[in-house]
């Protein structure tokens, strides 16, 4: 009798330890600490280009995470990417003319949405859309803009042949 009891106890201990480990993995290692409460609300923001933004990316104001990107869809009517942002209910007084921009955390980090407050005294409500948006910065566009600008300034100064344009671009 006694031996089955110790067996049961150590089996129970093992199973509890296993589940405690699963619980630890789910709550302490994954990014679930920002669990949105039930009183959260949704906002929509339409971007020309979302860059590398993914569902699950944080939405932050002044660096504080206030929500998450819930979903990203391509809207065939607007020809834009519409991101659905889920904002925690604690932050229910964000001016409804605040603007959303896609930013990058660190040099190589993931992208997130930064909200900066506007001046309106009306707060965002569930289902509102953010009107003022700033797209993600795409490196290729940045480079090509720089290239074309420098080529344009060169061609202003001197009449160029088509061959010299790439040379100017290389500078």
């Amino acid at each position: 009798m006694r031996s089955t009891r110790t067996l049961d106890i150590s089996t129970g201990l093992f199973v509890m330890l296993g589940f405690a480990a699963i619980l630890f993995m789910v709550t302490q290692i994954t990014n679930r600490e920002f669990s949105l409460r039930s009183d959260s609300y949704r906002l929509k923001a339409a971007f020309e280009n979302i860059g590398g933004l993914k569902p699950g990316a944080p939405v932050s104001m002044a660096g504080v995470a206030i929500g998450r990107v819930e979903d990203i869809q391509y809207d065939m009517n607007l020809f834009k990417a519409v991101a659905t942002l889920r904002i925690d209910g604690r932050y229910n007084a964000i001016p409804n003319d605040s603007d959303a921009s896609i930013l990058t955390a660190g040099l190589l980090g993931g992208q997130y949405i930064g909200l900066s407050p506007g001046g309106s005294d009306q707060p965002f409500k569930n289902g509102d859309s953010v009107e003022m948006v700033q797209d993600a910065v795409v490196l290729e566009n940045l480079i090509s803009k720089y290239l074309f600008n420098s080529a344009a300034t060169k061609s202003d100064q001197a009449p160029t042949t088509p061959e010299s344009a790439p040379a100017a671009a290389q500078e």
Partner: protein
Amino acid sequence: MITILREIAASVFSFLERVGLLVRFALRLAVILPSGILRVRPIIEQVYNTGARSLVIIMTCGLFIGMVLGLQGHDLLSRFGSEEYLGVATALSLLRELGPVVTALLFAGRAGTSLAAELGLMRATDQIAAMEIMAVDPMRRVVLPRFVGGVIAMPLLVSVFVVVALFGTQLVGVQFYGIDAGSFWSQMKDAVELDDVREGLIKGAVFGVACSLIAVYEGFNADPTAEGVGRATTRTVVLSAVVTLILDYIITASML
């Protein structure tokens, strides 16, 4: 020349035969699973046998693997000046790969061999034949609880392994190298998704099924001699390791 070809053909056929027997064995287990799972007591005993008694070796190995990952990871990452990513790197590699695979290999070595040797010895000492004479189905009475116990124990062992290993990494990274504890954990939290945990647990469950099945199959079908029991034990470890690594590739490729 002909004899060589004949020998190759014979070994191919015996391999196919073994695969077929294993599949038939697995199907028989699956058929008796719903009724056999109701007998809880022998399953608990086997969870204790395969799980709780593997705990010490799993935790020791986990701790040291985590500490080694801490040392190696710190050496590598400090070349790029990004030591804070040590938590991310170790957590992802542990959850997705090292946790399930190393646990499965240890499980095959610790629990799989004991299952195979126990069943093989029962076969060699005619205990299984005696059960058949008494109209007790040895598959249901002996094999099934051992299989189910192993399947239950494996994912739990994987999670214990991962958590202990992360603790070991934390020990080396934060206590020994002085990485900031806050950035260690927060970077990890930011980068690890619930899907990574799920992948590790799915792998753990699949490896648990594979390793337990191989162990009980090899033990149950061992030659009833002392040599046969030894061979069954060896084959259990070898086959479990190979199958685990092959399955690991397949699961990883399908989940990425």
